[in-house]
C-alpha cells in the first residue's frame, strides 16, 4: 500500500518527534508523524517535570521559535518553581512538575490543530534511499510512505534493553516494543554507534505515602511560566513532598549491589554523571549518610508518585526493601519497579550542524538517538531538525543557531563538533555567552528570526512586537534622563561622588538600586509594565559585561563567516598531523570557527586549512 507523498516524515512521537513534526508543518512542509502507538505521543518516560537550569532556557528558546513544549508545560504545570530565584537573572531557570495526562493531552492537541500535519500509526521498518538520498520510509506492514526528508527521533527505542536486576526484556520503555529492524538498518549504514544507559525510579502509590509526616515544598506564589504567550498557570498548583534515604536504606542497597544490573555487570552502556542511580550515589558518595528525595505527584487526579532521586536497576524485592526503609514510605506500594535501560545512539559527529546525517542526505537525527539525555534537549533538537528538514524539502538553506545566539546553538555545536563521551545534558556553564543567553530574553534573541522564517503565528507576532516597542520606549525614557552623582544620592542610590553624569540605564546597573528610586528620579518610567521595567533592569545589570563579550563574539562571527567547502580534501594537506586529519574527516566542520573547536586543533593547522581554502578558491576562479 502506498501512502500519500509527504515532504517530511518524522519517525517517533516523543519529545523530539512532536517538536520536529510541528516545526516542519509550521515551516510549510507537508508532514507525517509515524509512531508505533498514537496514544503515547507526548508521554514523559521518566521524571514528570519540565525545565530546570539550562533545560529551562532551552524550553524558552523552543517557545520563542513557535515550538510546543513550553505551552504544553504551562497547560499541565502543577508546581512551578523558578530555580535560582535569588541569584542573577542569567542563571534563573524556570521549572515545573507536570500532570502527565494533561501534558500528553496538550501535546496531542497542539499537534492535531497544526495544519499540514498527519499522524500515521505504524512501525517504520526501513528507510528508502535512491540515488544516495532519502526518498521515503517503509512500514512493517509493507506500506511505503514517499518523502523528501526524514527526521529520526527514536529515543531509547533502538535496540533498547530494559534491566531490572538480572531480568532483561527488550523494550523502548516499559510496556513498549523496541525498534529492532530500524536499528539493524542503521547498523547496516555503518554509522559510528555507541551504547548509553539511563535509569528511572520505582513509581509509588500516592495514597500509600504518609504525607503528613513529611516536609512539603510548595509551588511559587509568583510563578514563572515557560511560554511567552502564557500569563498565569492553567491548572491548580500543588506541593511536593520531601524525604531522605537513611543508613538502613544504604545498607540494604550496599548488600545487594551485585544484584544491580548496572553493578552486576549486565549493562555495558555509559551512564550519565549527573542523575546517577541510587546505587551510584551510595557507592560514590559513601560518606553521605542521607540523600534527598522529592516525591512528585504525577498528576492532579493521579495516584502515582515519582520519587525523584532513587533511580535504580536493583531487583524488585530489593526495591521493596529499601523503599520501605525510607521515612514516610514505610507502607508505600510500588506500582511499577524502577529499571535501567540501555540503548544505541549514533555518534553525533556524523551530523552536520543542521542535524542532517552526512552519510545519508535527507536523513535528520534528533533527540536521545544523538546521545543526549532529557526531554528539553531532545525537543530543542527536534525543533531544529524539523525546521531544517522542511527547508531541505523546499530547497532552502538550513537554519544554524550560533553559540552566541542560543543554548540550542551551544548544544548542537557541542554535539556535532565534539561528540559525546557520556549522555549530554545542558548546563548554564556550557554557554560562554551565558549573560546574554538568558531565559528572560529568549524571545528577543529568537522570535524575530522565527518570524522571518515564517514559523510563528500572528498572536505571538503581535505580542512580540508590542513588547519590543514597549522596551524600546522604556529604554529611551531611561537613557534620555541624566543625573549628577549628587542627584542620584539624593534619591537614595549609593554612588561615588565622582562628578560623572549618568543616565537612567547606568543607574539601574547598580546592583542595590530598586525601581522605586528610579521612579523618583524619572517619573515617566512608572507608566511601563512590570515586565518591561524588570526586563530593562536585567539589561542594565549585565550591560557592561555583555559589551565586553561582544568583542569576543565579533571574533567568533568572523570565523563563523569563513566557510569550509564540503569538497575540501584534508588528506591532501601537507603538514596536518594524521590525528588531526582523522578528526577533521570525522567531524567535517563547516566553518573555520567549528574547526577551531575540535579537540587538539593548533593555530598552524587552522592556518593550513585557511590557506588551502584560498588556494582552492583561486584555482576554481
Amino acid at each position, binding site marked *: 500500500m502506498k501512502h500519500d507523498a509527504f515532504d517530511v516524515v518524522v519517525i517517533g512521537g516523543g519529545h523530539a518527534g512532536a517538536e520536529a513534526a510541528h516545526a516542519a508543518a509550521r515551516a510549510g512542509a507537508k508532514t507525517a508523524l509515524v509512531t508505533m502507538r498514537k496514544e503515547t505521543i507526548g508521554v514523559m518516560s521518566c521524571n514528570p517535570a519540565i525545565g530546570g*537550569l539550562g533545560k529551562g532556557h532551552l524550553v524558552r528558546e523552543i517557545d520563542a521559535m513557535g515550538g510546543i513544549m513550553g505551552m504544553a508545560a504551562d497547560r499541565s504545570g502543577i508546581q512551578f518553581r523558578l530555580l535560582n530565584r535569588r*541569584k542573577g537573572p542569567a*542563571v534563573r531557570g524556570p521549572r515545573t512538575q507536570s500532570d502527565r495526562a494533561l501534558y500528553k493531552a496538550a501535546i496531542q492537541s497542539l499537534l492535531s490543530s497544526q495544519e499540514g500535519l498527519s499522524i500515521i500509526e505504524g512501525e517504520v521498518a526501513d528507510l528508502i534511499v535512491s540515488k544516495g538520498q532519502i526518498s521515503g520510509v517503509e512500514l512493517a506492514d509493507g506500506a511505503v510512505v514517499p518523502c523528501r526528508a526524514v527526521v529520526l527521533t527514536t529515543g531509547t527505542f533502538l535496540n533498547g534493553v530494559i534491566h531490572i536486576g538480572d531480568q532483561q526484556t527488550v523494550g523502548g520503555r516499559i510496556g513498549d516494543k523496541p525498534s529492532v529492524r530500524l536499528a539493524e538498518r542503521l547498523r547496516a549504514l555503518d554509522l559510528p554507534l555507541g551504547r548509553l544507559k539511563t535509569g528511572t525510579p520505582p513509581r509509588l502509590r500516592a495514597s500509600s505515602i504518609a504525607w503528613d509526616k513529611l516536609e512539603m515544598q510548595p509551588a511559587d506564589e509568583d510563578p514563572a511560566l515557560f511560554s511567552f504567550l502564557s500569563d498565569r498557570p492553567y491548572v491548580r498548583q500543588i506541593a511536593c513532598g520531601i524525604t531522605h534515604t537513611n543508613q538502613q536504606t544504604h545498607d540494604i542497597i550496599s548488600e545487594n549491589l551485585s544484584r544491580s544490573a548496572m553493578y552486576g555487570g549486565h549493562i555495558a552502556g555509559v551512564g550519565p554523571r549527573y542523575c546517577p542511580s541510587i546505587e551510584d550515589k551510595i557507592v560514590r558518595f559513601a560518606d553521605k549518610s542521607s*540523600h534527598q528525595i522529592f516525591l512528585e505527584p504525577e498528576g492532579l487526579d493521579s495516584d502515582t508518585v515519582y520519587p525523584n532521586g532513587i533511580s535504580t536497576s536493583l531487583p524488585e524485592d530489593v526495591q521493596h526493601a529499601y523503599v520501605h526503609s525510607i521515612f514516610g514510605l514505610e507502607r508505600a506500594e510500588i506500582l511499577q519497579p524502577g529499571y535501567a535501560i540501555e540503548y544505541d545512539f549514533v555518534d553525533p559527529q556524523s551530523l552536520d550542524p543542521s542535524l542532517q546525517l552526512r552519510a545519508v542526505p535527507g536523513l535528520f537525527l534528533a533527540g536521545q538517538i544523538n546521545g543526549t539525555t532529557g526531554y528539553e534537549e531532545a525537543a530543542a533538537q527536534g525543533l531544529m531538525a524539523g525546521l531544517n528538514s522542511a527547508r531541505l524539502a523546499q530547497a532552502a538553506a538550513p537554519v544554524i543557531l550560533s553559540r552566541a545566539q542560543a543554548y540550542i546553538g551551544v548544544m548542537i555545536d557541542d554535539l556535532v563538533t565534539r561528540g559525546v563521551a557520556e549522555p549530554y545534558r545542558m548546563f548554564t556553564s556550557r554557554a560562554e555567552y551565558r549573560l546574554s543567553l538568558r531565559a528572560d530574553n529568549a524571545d528577543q534573541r529568537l522570535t524575530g528570526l522565527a518570524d522571518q522564517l515564517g514559523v510563528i503565528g500572528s498572536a505571538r507576532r503581535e505580542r512580540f512586537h508590542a513588547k519590543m516597542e514597549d522596551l524600546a520606549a522604556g529604554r529611551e525614557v531611561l537613557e534620555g534622563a541624566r543625573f549628577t552623582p549628587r542627584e542620584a544620592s539624593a534619591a537614595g542610590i549609593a554612588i561615588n561622588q565622582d562628578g560623572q553624569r549618568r543616565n537612567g540605564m547606568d543607574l539601574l546597573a547598580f546592583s542595590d538600586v530598586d525601581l522605586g528610586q528610579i521612579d523618583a528620579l524619572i517619573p515617566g518610567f512608572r507608566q511601563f509594565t512590570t515586565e518591561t521595567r524588570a526586563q530593562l533592569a536585567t539589561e542594565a545589570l549585565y550591560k557592561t559585561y555583555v559589551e565586553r563579550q561582544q568583542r569576543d563574539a565579533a571574533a567568533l562571527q568572523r570565523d563563523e563567516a569563513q566557510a569550509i567547502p564540503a569538497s575540501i580534501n584534508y588528506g591532501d594537506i601537507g603538514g596536518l*598531523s594524521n590525528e588531526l586529519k582523522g578528526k577533521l574527516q570525522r567531524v567535517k566542520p563547516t566553518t573555520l570557527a567549528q574547526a577551531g573547536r575540535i579537540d587538539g586543533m593548533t593555530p*598552524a593547522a587552522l592556518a*593550513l586549512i585557511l590557506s588551502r581554502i584560498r588556494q582552492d578558491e583561486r584555482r576554481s576562479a
Partner: protein
Amino acid sequence: MHTIFALATARGKSGVAILRISGPSAHEIGVRLAGRLPLAGHTALRRLRDSDGALLDEALVLRFDAPRSFTGEDVVELQVHGSIAVIRAVEAAIAQTKMVRMAEPGEFTRRALLNGHLDLAQVEGLSDLIAAETEAQRKQAQQLFSGGMRDFAEICRIELIRATALIEATIDFADEEVPVDVSPEVSALIDKVIGRIDAQLDGYHAAERVRSGFEVAIIGPPNAGKSTLINKIAGREIAIISEIAGTTRDVLEVRVDLDGLPVTFLDTAGLRDAEDAIEQIGVTRARSRAADADVRVLLIDGSQEQGDFSPGVTVDLRYMTKSDLTGIGISALHGDGIDQLLRDVSALLSERVSGMTLASHERHRQALERAKALLVVAKTVFQRGDDGAEILALHLRDAVGALDSLIGRVDVEAVLGEIFAQFCIGK
C-alpha cells in the same frame, strides 16, 4: 607552507657554520645537495654538491622528521666549514633548487610556536637566552625557556578552575544537593592566586633589570674623579661588554658583567650650580639620569673643602676619592679601593635580585596585572553574596584567559609580530 632556510650561526669566519632548512621540501633539498640523507635523528658525513655536481664542501648532515624537530616540520641541518665563501656557496645551491626561500627573522621559532612545540613565554625565553651575556641572564632565560611560565600559569589555572567549578556547581545544581557554602574555599583559592601573582609582580622589577641590565650612576661635584673611575673600571680585567659613546660631553658608559649581573656604569656631569644655561641643562639631566638609575654612587673629592654638598637625589653609596692624597677612601687614579666599591655595588644589586621571579618581560607584567585586577574585582563581587555568582564566574574565566595569554594560549596574533622582530635570522 613554504620551505624556508637560513644560516643559524653568526655570520663571519668560524670553524663551523650551521644552515637549517625546514618545511615540506627540506628532505628533498637535502638529498639534492648531499646525495643521501642519514636516518632521522642521525648524523652523516656527506659531500655537498651543487646542481652541476661541483663539490661545495664536506659537511655533517643532520636529518629530522616531522614532528620530531625544532619547528615540528621536516628539517635538514648542514654543518659546514664556517668560511664566508663556503656559506655563500651552499646558500646559493640551496636557493637554486627553487623549492625554498630565505626565512624571515624568527620564522623557525614562529613555526615551532604554531606547531605547538613552544609556547609564547618559551619563545621569549629563547630570545633571552640568545641575548644572554651574564650568568644571571643565562639562568633566568633558561628558566623561562624551560617552560617555567607555563608551569606557573598551569598552577594558577588549576586553582582558578576549581574555584570556577565550585561557583558553577552552586549555579547549575542549585536544586540538587551540593554544598551550599562554597565561599570559604572559593575565597581561599582566589586569595592564593592573587598571592602568587603578587609574588611574580614583586619580583618583576628585579627580573626585568637582570634581563635588560642595571644602571649605576656615578655622581658628585665636578672633578671628584668620576670619569677617572669609569675609565679605570673600563680598563680592568673584568669582562667588558661594550663601550657606548655618551650623548653628553665627556660621558662614558661602561657595561660590565658584575658577578653575573649585567651592569652599566654611567658617568654624569658634575653637579653644581652652573654658571651658564647650557651647563645647567647638563646638570639637570645628570640629576634626572641619576634619579632613574638603579643605584647612585656619590664621589666626593676628599682633598678639597666641600662645605655642604647636596646632590639633590638619594644616594645609595658614597666614597671619598683621591685617597692617594688624603689616605682615606678610594683612589680612582691608582685603583685602590675600587674592588671594594664594586663589591658594595654587587652586594646591593644581588640583594634586589634575590626577590626576582620569572616575569621579566613587559608583556608578562601586563598579563599579570590584568589577571590580578580581574581577581580583585571578582573578590568584591564575591563578597557581595549570592547575586553575583554568574558575574563572578565570568571574571574568573577572564582571569584564566589573562593567565593563559602569558603562554600565548589566547589571541596570539597581536603579540607575535612584536616578539619575532627581536629575533635574528636563523632562529
